[in-house]
């Protein structure tokens, strides 16, 4: 599954892949995989990188001859598409204004795939056709999500996944030898790792959502344009409302959970649990058995 996602990512979400892997440059194929390092946004390099040759090329392209495009080249590519997108937006305005000529339609068809890139400028200025070179460059740079958060969250997610698989493997091994309950170090590790799946999920969620910025719909609709026009205060108030409400529910839930955990299942009076079961052969009831 990881292999499939990696290949898919290299195919359709080149930007996300480049950010996750802190691939600043397009290298000679096959690209090396950076196991760990410190991505530096300013110098556009990864300091103290520990790399495994060939691996990224294999994951992302399943070949040793295809390139994995680096961030710097992606920015150059996106700058071109933004310029083309400005043209697309202008043609769209003409169409909206009632120009129904075949030439305008054909010209728009040619560049309509870049319209979304043009719309990225809307975050900077409303009249995008007058955008300056600097603004276009800034918009192009904004097409790459911040690299360090992507790089780290992805590695935490994968690291936890490997850790959990290892623990499952060890538990399975000791369980088959019926000595699992004697491996106290393993039991402690499992207890400590209880939040691991949750943290891994959150990290994965972050990689997916932060990694597709600045897009709501990749290359079509920028997040800044798709967001609601509600005020920031509205969003803060509703978010606070949710936090307060759910915290209140958590208190009630925990109170009831502890209360009923202490009472045990026989508190339900279903007649099915310990202390209330009568033996099937019609023997003495087991009630009060615990008191002896």
């Amino acid at each position, binding site marked *: 599954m990881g292999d499939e996602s990696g290949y898919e990512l290299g195919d359709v979400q080149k930007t996300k892949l480049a950010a996750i892997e802190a691939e600043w440059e397009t290298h000679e194929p096959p690209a090396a995989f950076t196991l760990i390092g410190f991505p530096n946004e300013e110098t556009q390099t990864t300091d103290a990188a520990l790399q495994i040759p060939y691996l990224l090329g294999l994951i992302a392209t399943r070949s040793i001859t295809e390139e994995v495009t680096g961030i710097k080249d992606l920015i150059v590519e996106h700058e071109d598409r933004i310029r083309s997108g400005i043209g697309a937006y202008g043609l769209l305005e003409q169409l909206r204004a009632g120009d129904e000529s075949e030439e305008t339609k054909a010209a728009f068809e040619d560049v309509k795939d870049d319209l979304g890139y043009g719309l990225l400028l809307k975050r900077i200025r409303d009249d995008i056709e007058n955008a300056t070179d600097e603004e276009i460059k800034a918009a192009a740079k904004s097409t790459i999500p911040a690299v360090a958060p992507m790089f780290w969250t992805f590695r935490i997610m994968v690291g936890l996944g490997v850790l959990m698989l290892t623990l499952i493997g060890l538990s399975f091994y000791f369980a088959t030898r019926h000595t699992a309950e004697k491996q106290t170090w393993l039991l402690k590790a499992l207890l400590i790792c209880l939040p691991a799946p949750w943290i891994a999920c959150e990290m994965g969620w972050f990689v997916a959502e932060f990694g597709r910025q600045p897009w709501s719909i990749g290359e079509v609709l920028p997040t800044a344009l798709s967001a*609601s*026009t509600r005020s920031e205060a509205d969003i803060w108030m509703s978010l606070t*409302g949710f936090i307060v409400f759910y915290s209140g529910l958590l208190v*009630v839930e925990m109170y009831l959970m502890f209360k*009923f955990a202490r009472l045990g299942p026989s508190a339900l009076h279903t007649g099915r649990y310990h202390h209330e079961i009568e033996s099937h052969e019609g023997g003495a009831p087991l009630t009060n058995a615990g008191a002896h």
Partner: protein
Amino acid sequence: MFDYELLKIIWWLLVGVLLIGFAVTDGFDMGVLSLLKIVGKTDNERRVMLNTVGPHWDGNQVWFITAGGAIFAAWPIVYAVAFSGLYWALLLVLFALFFRPVGFEYRSKIETARWRNNWDWLLTAGSAIPALVFGVAFGNLFLGLPFTIDADLRSYYEGSFWQLLSPFAILCGLVSVIMLAMHGAVFLQMRTEDDVYLRSRSVAQITALATFVLFILAGIWVYFMPGMDIVDIKTTAGVVTPLQKTVVEVESGWFANYGKYPLFMLAPVIALVSLLATAFLSKLNKPGFAFTFSSIAIAGIILTAAFSLFPFIMPSSINPSVSLTMWDVVSSQKTLNIMLWVAIIFVPIVLSYTLWGYYKMWGRVSTKFVEDNKFGTY
């Protein structure tokens, strides 16, 4: 592939069907819970009421989610304008609805009067508030909502939550709350015995007659308010945005459709007749028939609103020409077509297992049943 214009009409009808499905199914459990403190006088009686809707309320609520989902898919612009424009109203609905699942689960876990009383109030609020807000929202459609749309089709809402609470909108809110209380009372009459039965029987008659009067009042009010009409739209058959038409205000405009399409008159007439029939049959101790008629009455009332507004969905009070209509807010022809087939296949499947659920859980719930199973029921 269906014709685009036909698909637009089909989806206008389908969204209506989903809203009616929501009001008829979730409506009765909202009604039952709104009446929790009125019909249920003792703890056991309230538990009886909770257990009549206990197995069904969450399934019913899925109609609401389905209607929201259908609006998202079929009318994305309506979804965007409504959900960000009516932000606080819908959050109020959401927060009120939160109390339903937890109320059902937590209420009977602890036996003190204070605990149960608090949850009773929260369950009542969790049903009555959404019913009220939905009615208020419908009322505001007739008045127009203060939104506009810019050239990039982004919507801007200029009003506040409190502005929604105008006298006419509150009247519509009352129609909604009392109509659903009627529906819930008739449902209780079908599913309970003794005191709860008798009390719900009187409540059903009062609320059916009250809905009758309030519905007529709202109708008269609408007659004296301005409506809207499209005087010029680029096309109804093809792709068109809400910016490509001109809308004017017309005196008594929301009644114009009944002159144009006399068959539309059936909706309010059937609604009014059904309300009387509900009250009458409830009095005659025929709750099954009464429930059928209260369902028809709800459908008639919702259709009356839809027919009056047609083809408008969300009129704008500050810029009428960008009002949202069923011609210009729809998804692409391909999307509507695919969704239609999905609906044709899955709606019958969902309906059949829902009906099976009702069939399995049918029968009257008595106070004795609740007492005998006090650890296993709601």
